């Protein structure tokens, strides 16, 4: 080795050592303040008013400025939020002790009166009246009482094991009573909460801009003020492929709605991190068991056994996903590994169709309202054809389906999916033909309803006891082949690697409260 080469090697080693130590110093440094986080989403929320917004991505957008009494972690464990503690004094009474010193973004105090106002608003009792996902439960409260400025007592009409879970739903977020009174029916354009970000600007269908709220109450574990970010921007990009490209180019920093195909592709990109949430979405077909030929239990069994679920996973979900054994996937505590569902078996399916007494070529009609479900529907259509069942697919608009077709019972089934979360499974009552659900089973409504109510009101919310009731409910659905469970698909969250502190909540979405950018 010549002298020059040796020298070069020495210089190289020194540079490498310096670079390494510099990186270590950087890594050791805590969270950085400042910067703008840009998130991409497919759909603009139906309302910016948290108590009106529907689920999914809307909830991420409203939760930046609105907070709930109870917070959660990914597993659904309850954490203090705007309430520091709570106690069920009896199965029908719950007392919340509120956090002191919290201010709304308009400078007014958060206190027991504000909580009382909020629950009345959620119940639709305050002008202008609203209707949101929390209305039914809030209406079932007998009274909401402000015991003192920081204590609230809620009396329920009956025991409800899901009540604590209800209290961390985005639709029970606390909004400023002053702002509601000031803006009236224009409140949705001026949402005001206690959250870490203030809504600064919104361009309907396109963008939402947030700015840091300086008076935010929460501190990080070292006692530093939150949030770390100065600004946050949400960009609506409906096409998933465009969102993927935007993430690759760094136009957006995060995508919490990405589909399997794109996420799997992004795993190879070293600058992007992909979080996989197994069993996030339960795909299923609720069956309209009152409408012939779907009223025939053997026909329903034939449909269930003719579906090759692995084929769906392999072709549509790139092999990622699992075959369900019931409604609740392992994400939910209500998941029970001992349950079983119909296996794919062509011979048995043909046999069941024979037993049903219906001829080969019997038709039924399904509604499909999203592109991913269209692919599933076409594959299931081809699978059912193998046993001689003819499934007709209608592409329909979701709003029309929800408001008209479902009530009219126009279809025998619909391709749908329900996110599996750390939320209380009581929310999923409707799946089990609860009489207020998408389709009710006229032959068994009372049995289903009785069990569903039992599961929800089980004394003290003892999970093991409720699991037993869910198992009974499952048995009933199984014997009647009252559903067609398709697959559990994965959820994916992707972000650029400089996005730090990405933490999922019970509904498997991340807020930006503690996120910081290492740029």
């Amino acid at each position, binding site marked *: 080795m010549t002298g020059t080469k040796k020298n070069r090697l020495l210089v190289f080693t020194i540079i490498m050592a310096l670079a390494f130590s510099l990186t270590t110093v950087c890594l050791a440094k805590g969270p950085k303040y400042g910067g703008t986080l840009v998130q991409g989403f497919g759909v603009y929320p139906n309302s910016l008013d948290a108590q009106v917004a529907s689920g999914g991505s809307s909830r991420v957008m409203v939760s930046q400025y609105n907070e709930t009494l109870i917070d959660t972690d990914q597993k659904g464990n309850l954490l203090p939020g705007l309430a520091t503690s709570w106690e069920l004094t009896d199965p029908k009474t719950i007392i919340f002790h509120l956090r002191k010193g919290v201010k709304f973004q308009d400078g007014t105090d958060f206190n027991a009166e504000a909580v009382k106002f909020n629950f009345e608003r959620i119940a639709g009792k305050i002008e202008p009246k609203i209707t949101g996902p929390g209305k039914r439960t809030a209406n079932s409260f007998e009274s909401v009482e402000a015991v003192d400025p920081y204590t609230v007592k809620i009396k329920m009409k009956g025991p409800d094991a899901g009540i604590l879970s209800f209290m961390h739903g985005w639709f029970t977020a606390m909004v400023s009573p002053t702002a509601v009174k000031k803006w009236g029916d224009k409140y949705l354009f001026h949402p005001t909460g206690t959250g870490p970000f203030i809504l600064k600007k919104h361009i309907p269908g396109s963008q939402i801009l947030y700015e840091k709220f300086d008076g935010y109450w929460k501190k990080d574990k070292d006692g530093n003020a939150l949030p770390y970010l100065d600004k946050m921007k949400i960009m609506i990009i409906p096409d*998933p*492929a465009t969102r993927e490209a935007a993430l690759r180019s760094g136009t957006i920093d995060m995508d919490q709605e990405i589909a399997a*195909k794109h996420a799997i*592709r992004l795993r190879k990109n070293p600058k992007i991190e992909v979080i996989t949430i197994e069993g996030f979405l339960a795909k299923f077909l609720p069956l309209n068991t009152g409408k012939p030929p779907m009223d025939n239990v053997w026909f329903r069994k034939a449909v269930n056994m003719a579906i*090759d679920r692995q*084929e*769906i996973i*392999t*072709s*549509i979900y790139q092999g990622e996903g699992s075959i369900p054994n019931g409604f609740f996937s392992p994400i939910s505590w209500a998941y029970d590994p001992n349950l079983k569902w119909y296996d794919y078996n062509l011979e048995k399916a043909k046999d069941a169709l024979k037993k049903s007494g219906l001829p080969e070529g019997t038709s039924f009609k399904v509604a499909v309202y999203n592109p991913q479900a*269209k*692919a599933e*529907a*076409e*594959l299931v*259509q*081809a*699978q059912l*054809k193998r046993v001689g069942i003819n499934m*007709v*697919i*209608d*592409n329909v608009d979701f709003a029309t389906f929800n408001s008209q077709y479902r009530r009219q019972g126009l279809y025998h089934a619909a391709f749908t999916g329900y996110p599996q979360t750390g939320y209380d499974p009581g929310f999923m009552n409707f799946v089990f033909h609860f009489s207020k659900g998408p389709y009710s089973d006229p032959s068994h409504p009372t049995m289903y309803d009785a069990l569903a109510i039992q599961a929800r009101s089980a004394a003290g919310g003892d999970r093991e006891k409720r699991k037993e009731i869910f198992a009974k409910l499952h048995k009933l659905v199984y014997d009647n082949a009252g559903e067609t469970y398709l697959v559990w698909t994965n959820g994916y969250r992707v972000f650029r690697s400089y996005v730090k502190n990405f933490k999922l909540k019970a509904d498997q979405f991340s807020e930006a409260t503690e996120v910081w950018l290492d740029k």
Partner: protein
Amino acid sequence: MNSEVETSAMSDEYLAPRGLKHFVGRLLKVRLAALGLFFIVVLIFCSIFAPVLAPRDPAAANGYRALESPSRDFLLGTDYLGRDILSRLIYGSRISLLVAVLSIGITVMIGVPLGLMSGYLGGWIDTVFMRLMDALYAFPPLLLALTLVAALGPSIINVIVAVGIVMIPTFSRLARAQTLSVREQTYVIAARTVGSPVRRILFRHIWPNVMAAIIVQSSLGMAVAILAESSLSYMGVGVRPPTATWGVMLAEGYPHLESNPWLSIIPGSAIFLTVLSLNLVGDALRDVLDPRLRGVT
């Protein structure tokens, strides 16, 4: 009456001696048109004998063999549900041709008589019909078709009706314009003088002279109809699954454009070649038919 016989004989004379054989012969002399015509004939053959030609059931899915590249098993590969692309392409030609022929049929049946009457009769009939056509014309064609299909419901018949209606103004205006010049011809005036009924004048004397332009426009219109069907199917308002059409195939291929481009390229090329062929034939038809028309006048 005598003069009427004479005039009709006169127009027949120009069609008869030259005949179909002569006409096709002249058409084939235009080399590109010959190529286009050949492609269209192949297409018609494919669509008629689709069940024989297609190697597989176009709707039979096999999810375990989804998105395969072309191989001996699947000559053009498989789509995202493992269906044979070649079979879907062959069956898809049926829908495309059906839409092309039937929607042009509807357009000609409605639009041409309207145009003939407007042009020949004039007056308030002309005003009413043409303002109606203007109103139809004012809508962006695809939007109008989309609205019609949305209102009527997704089915191939409704697509045909919608596409047919959308093209009516073009045809009726063309027919009217042609009629305006033909009705001043001496043989038309003569027929009118001897008291021929309007219907007879329209269909016996005027129509044969307008026909050439309509034929040319029809071949071009078919191309438009195929594109319209593809666009409607692409947007998901066309046919019901699992019916294969080129537009549906194109739409289904789009999400896989990066990883499996052939899913879109194959149906896209089919649409492109068919439309190109129809346009080439249409252009050549114009060249072949126009001088003959000049001969008449």
